[in-house]
């Protein structure tokens, strides 16, 4: 199965806007695809994992570099 990867720019957005952006993209992606959100609000380190957990997706990587926070989500299998 081929999976796809997307990167989205959430710089300057404050929570929950990055979560909303992630949600909008995830809705158009298939199970197993991955999405990296590049953010400047450190709140995403908490909020994107929380959103992923309750909606059946998985955070597979988080990275902090030069004031930017990168969170990668793997899309879950759909209806939980």
């Amino acid at each position: 199965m081929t999976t796809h990867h997307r990167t989205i720019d959430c710089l300057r957005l404050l929570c929950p806007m990055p979560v909303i952006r992630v949600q909008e993209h995830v809705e158009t992606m298939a199970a197993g695809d991955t999405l990296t959100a590049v953010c400047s609000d450190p709140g995403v380190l908490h909020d994107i994992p929380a959103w992923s957990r309750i909606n059946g997706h998985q955070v597979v990587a988080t990275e902090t570099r030069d004031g930017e926070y990168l969170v990668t989500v793997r899309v879950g299998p759909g209806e939980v």
Partner: protein
Amino acid sequence: MSKHPKALALISGGLDSLLASKVVQDQGVHVEGINFFTGFCVEGHTHAIRKQDRARPKRNNALWVADQLGIKLHIVDVVDEYKQVVFNPKYGYGAHLNPCLDCKIFMVRKAREWIEQRGFDFVITGEVVGQRPKSQRKHAMPLVQRDAGIDDRLLRPLSARNLPETLPERMGWVDRDKLHGFSGRSRKPQMALAALYGFEDYAQPAGGCCFLTDGNYTVKLTDLWKSRGGRRYELDDIMLLKVGRHIRPAPNFKLIVAREEGEVNFLSGYRRLFPSLKMVSHSGPLALLDGEPTAADIELAARIVGRYSQGRAAPLVELEYATTGGEKSRLRVAPMCADDMPKGWLL
């Protein structure tokens, strides 16, 4: 029960919506949550921006509530649609610019549209009769149902026993006897129920859930509208009202001066949208200029920024002015004395 009923709960992040959802969930109803982002929500933005606040843990309360309940949460961006609620509330404003009753109607209407599209059966809110001055008075509650077009598909589990029977009760999806009859301003029944369920560390009950109830904020919002000659805003505008000192020396421009490093970083992100002033000769804040300042205004703005810098006692300070296109120039000015700045300039 002939079917497995599904309910959508309005999750603000406070204790009431947590409890209301839990009461219904415990009766075997499938519950999902919805949270509307209006741009005015109090969601730790100042916290995210100000460095000194970052040591404290920050969380999104609506996500926390959904996590506690183990339910899905849909966060919906309503920034544009919500403007009409702020500009023209049919039922007027509360103590500040908070259009609470219209806001409730708007959110319940959006929730109704959502359930109709997805085959859910009813909507839950954490409203309690008589808890808030305007939107939760007993006579206001039927108004919400009528104007949102939801009628008896709206259940308020915390106050249901004080209110007429609703569809989920009539259909036997929920048992009215297991709902509550809370009313009034006391928070004690909710706290007791929270203790019963073992919920701790919930967001503290507050006066309002958004910045429109905050007088310091709405002064700046009113000023923004006055300066723009009408009630208009973009998301960036209302975000910036939460940050820095806002100083308006004249109707045609204002300055937004960072108060600390976190705000400097945040405002730096806007330097392609607003001209900016940065201290060169001394350490000091970054400021954005909003409006249409003349050359004389820019010099005045530079003197004001100098007043907030380490060079405030120096005869002259140097600043860099940058346009939105990135063109830079230098200015040397005398910092303004604290007493020379009219009090009314600081919003």
